[in-house]
Each structure stands twice: as structure tokens, then as C-alpha cells.
């Protein structure tokens, strides 16, 4: 074979990638036609495949966004995202991690805050799905804590736990994503933002909404505050006499639901 069009390995790889990313066509001169196909047709197998492969990744990660947008709008949005956020991770599992922020900050998608919330919810579900395995704290362990330790004890959530607030009826709508025609999923605005929690105690991912005081206390727990401060956080909702009992009740339910990963005092 001849060396007439020889370029360095680095030059060829850069030109190839530029062609696929549509940032340069110089690579056309480095490859040959065949008797059956011209080189541009053959090169475009890579250019087309690049977008289609990453669109498929987003389709798998964001079925709720797809159900809201429909295939055509989703495809258009996905191509804009691919151009803005090329993958920097060897595992395509992480490719879509910026989608919610992209939708919030990029016209015209910034006009559809419900889609951004759906993306944030779906990404959080994915994060919980394959987060580190961790056995939740069991009730017996908490009950064996000596009384004096309750002045200093602090709790940490499971590493899979995610706290989110939604101004739209996102999780409930998400559950209907396969019952509607693509593009037909409606996600209603709420009168007030609703707090939600996502967590994975064993292998199955759970999510549910939270009462306002529960969300406040959970946020305080996630921040690492000790139990007396969790009680204080509830004073916005209940009086001083009721706070310890309400805090203990919420803590008990979180333990029973497997949300607590550890505690220390």
C-alpha cells in the first residue's frame, strides 16, 4: 500500500474525530472511496452513528422527558445537548448527567421548566439505582443508643438518598409515562413546590413526597446536624413541647423505611 496520503497517527485521529463532531471535513482526504461507495457515504456512517448512539442513551435515561416531548422534539433537543455536552466519560451511563441543567439554561428549553424537573427526577432515580450498596440502620440499633447520647447523636442518610423539590407534578406524571402516547404526557404545575425524597434501601429504588416539616428536618439531618438541632428545625411547624415527639416519630419512620445509613454520637 502506498504512503502518499500518510499523516501522523495523531493528525489522522484528530481529523477523524473532527469529522464525526462536524467541526472539520479534512479527514475526507485521508480515506478512500470503494468501488461500491464514496468516502463521504462511508464516513457518514460514523457521523450519523455518533448522534444516534447518544440519543439512544438519553432515550433510555429519560423516558419521562421523551414522553413529554415526543420523539421529534426529543431528537432535536438531544442533538443540541450532544453538541453542548460531548461525553467526557468512558461510560455512556454518565453522558446525560447535565441534561436538567442544560434544559434550565438553554433556549428554547428554558421555557419548559417541567421538562427540566422531569430530567432532574429521572437522573436522581438513575443515581439511586446503581449507587453504592449500603445496609440501612435497623430500629434495634437506634433503640440501643444510650439516653445521654441523644444530645449529640447525628444521622446520615443512605448514600443513595436524594432530596428534591418539584414545582410540577413530576413523580406522579412519570408513573404514567408508558400509558400515554409519546409527547402526550402532561405534567401539571402545583400551587406550591412539593418536597420529595428518593432512596434505595436494598435493590429497589423508592420515592415519595414529604410533609413540609418532614422535609425541613430531613434537610437538617442531611446537613449533619445533631438530633437536638433536628428538633429545633421543627419549631417552624410545631411548638417546643411537641417538637421532640414529632422528631422522634419522623426518625422512626425513616428508619423503618430504610433511609438512614449510619449514626454517630
Amino acid at each position, binding site marked *: *500500500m*502506498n*504512503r*502518499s*496520503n*500518510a*499523516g*501522523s*497517527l*495523531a493528525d*489522522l*485521529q*484528530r481529523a*477523524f*474525530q473532527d469529522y*464525526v*463532531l462536524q467541526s472539520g471535513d479534512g479527514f475526507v*482526504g*485521508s*480515506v*478512500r472511496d*470503494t*468501488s*461500491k*461507495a464514496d*468516502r463521504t*457515504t*462511508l*464516513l457518514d*456512517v*460514523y457521523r450519523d*452513528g*455518533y448522534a444516534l*448512539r*447518544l440519543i439512544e*442513551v438519553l432515550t433510555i435515561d429519560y423516558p419521562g422527558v421523551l414522553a413529554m416531548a415526543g420523539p421529534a422534539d426529543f431528537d432535536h433537543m438531544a442533538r443540541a445537548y450532544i453538541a453542548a455536552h*460531548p*461525553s*467526557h*466519560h*468512558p*461510560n*455512556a*451511563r454518565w*453522558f446525560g448527567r447535565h441534561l436538567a441543567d442544560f434544559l434550565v439554561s438553554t433556549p428554547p428549553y428554558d421555557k419548559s421548566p417541567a421538562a427540566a424537573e422531569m430530567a432532574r427526577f429521572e437522573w436522581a432515580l438513575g443515581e*439511586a*439505582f*446503581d*449507587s*453504592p*450498596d*449500603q445496609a440501612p440502620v435497623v430500629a434495634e440499633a437506634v433503640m440501643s443508643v444510650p439516653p445521654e447520647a441523644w444530645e449529640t447523636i447525628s444521622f446520615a442518610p443512605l448514600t443513595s438518598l436524594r432530596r428534591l423539590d418539584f414545582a410540577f407534578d413530576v413523580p406522579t406524571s412519570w408513573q404514567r409515562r408508558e400509558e400515554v402516547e409519546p409527547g402526550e404526557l402532561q405534567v401539571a404545575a402545583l400551587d406550591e413546590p412539593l418536597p420529595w425524597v428518593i432512596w*434505595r434501601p436494598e*435493590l429497589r429504588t423508592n420515592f415519595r413526597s414529604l410533609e413540609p416539616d418532614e422535609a425541613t428536618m430531613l434537610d437538617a439531618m442531611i446537613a449533619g446536624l445533631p438530633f437536638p438541632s433536628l428538633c429545633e428545625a421543627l419549631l417552624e411547624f410545631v411548638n417546643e413541647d411537641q417538637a421532640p415527639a414529632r422528631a422522634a416519630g419522623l426518625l422512626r419512620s425513616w428508619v423503618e423505611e430504610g433511609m438512614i445509613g449510619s449514626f454517630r454520637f
Partner: protein
Amino acid sequence: MNDIGFGLGLRHDHYEEIVAAPGKVSWFEALSENYMVAGGMPLHWLDTFRRDYPIALHGVSMSIGSIDPLDQTYLGDLKRLIDRVEPLWVSDHLCFTGLRGINMHDLLPLPYTEEALDHVAERVMRVQDRLGRRLVLENVSSYVTYAASELTEWEFIAALCQRADCEVLLDVNNVFVSAFNHEFDALAFLRGIPRERVRQFHLAGHTNNGSHIIDTHDNPIVRGVWELYAEAVRLFPGVPTMIERDANIPPYAELLAELDVARDIAARATESGPEARQAAE
């Protein structure tokens, strides 16, 4: 290698069916990146199947041919997965998957030049040192022919095996696809690969667009690939075989039936050349 036999790609669509119909295959090939996660269901299933089956690990993102530095974080994650799975062998593709920090998530072919050979051989040796085992590299399907290439693909692979002491995952479908696209003789490819280096066969379906074939893994294996497989078995007897299906995934039973065809062709090819040709036809 003779006792490893016939396997399938481990796909989550089939997890429940595999549990319901145990022992239908001798081993599975797991896609490494699918299990390079912290925990949860993917690793639970992998551990479950590993208890009952040997598993080979097959990666798509090592980017062994890239001019970017080797991704040491990726190799560390892969090493942890290897320690967990204790795989039959560890494979990836002879290609590059991106550079300048961008991952294209595609198997981009290399120019078959002495410069590329030096580059890849040195990286394969470093990866093998890091992983503490031989690396098995798969020939990719490719669609463009570099004007700069100085070697045939099979000359490049044979030289790489020699220099880096690595092994080959011979994808019979990819040989077929690339032979069509680049207009070379598929048998010449097979005959150019050192017999003792072939660790595994891949079989898969593809999409023929008339002017070129795309390696889509979304269809049953075509007759021409079966015929080439029979030749491959004659040249490389006893090499473990598996079928890849990555899209339009059929029920598990359908792939098991396709694997029975591979078993039949391999048995006939091993017994007698002409009979194997009949089976393939």
C-alpha cells in the same frame, strides 16, 4: 479452551429468562462498562450469574489505540471488576474511542501503519502490566479505508500479537463486514491471524445497505457469516464462541436456537470440512 464451549452476551432483557432456564449456555460475556458502577441491581445480577456461569469481560471504552493518555481511572475500575468477577478473559476492541478528553462511544478504526503499531503495542503492554493478565483484542467492523495504511488489518493484528503478547477476539461478523466494505478476501484475513492467539469468536447480525454493511447487532446471523464461521472453526478449532445481540433483542430462547446453529456448524466443521460447508449452506 476446548471445554469452554458456547456462550451468549449477558443482556438485562434476558436476566429473568436465564434464571428460569438455567444451564442452556456454558458461559456469558458481560459488557464491562455496564457493571463498572458502584452497586445496585447491575452488580447484584452479575454476582448472581457469576455463581453459576464462567464470565468473560468485554469492554468498549479502553480506547487502546487513542493518542490520548491511557485512562488510569478506567483501568482501575476495570481492575476492580476483574477482581470481583475473576473472568475467563478480558477483551476490548482494536480501535480508538476518542481523544482530547472526548469519548465518542464508537469503535473508530486505526490506520494500519508502523507508527500505529508501535503506539498500540506499547499501550497494550502497559495495560497488561496494570491488569496483570493478557489483553484480548477484537477486530472491529469498519467503514472507511485509510489511504495511509501500510499493512493489511490481519498483518497489523498478527504483528501486534507478536510484539505485545496479546490475544485476539476474532469477530467473524466483523471480518465479513470489513471484507465487504474494504473489498478484501475474508479468508485471507482468517488465514493471516496466528492460530495460537485466537481466544474467542464473536458472531452477530448486521445490516446490508448494498454499498456497505453496518455492524448493527440487531438481526440474526446471515448465511455468509455462518459460512465464514465454519472456515474459522476449521482454522481455529476449539475456540469458544458467543453471539452478540445489542438491539432488537429477541427472547432468550431465540438466541439459544441461534447458538444451536453455531454448535452444529462447529461440530461439523471440526469433524469434516465439506460437511461443515453443507451445514453452513
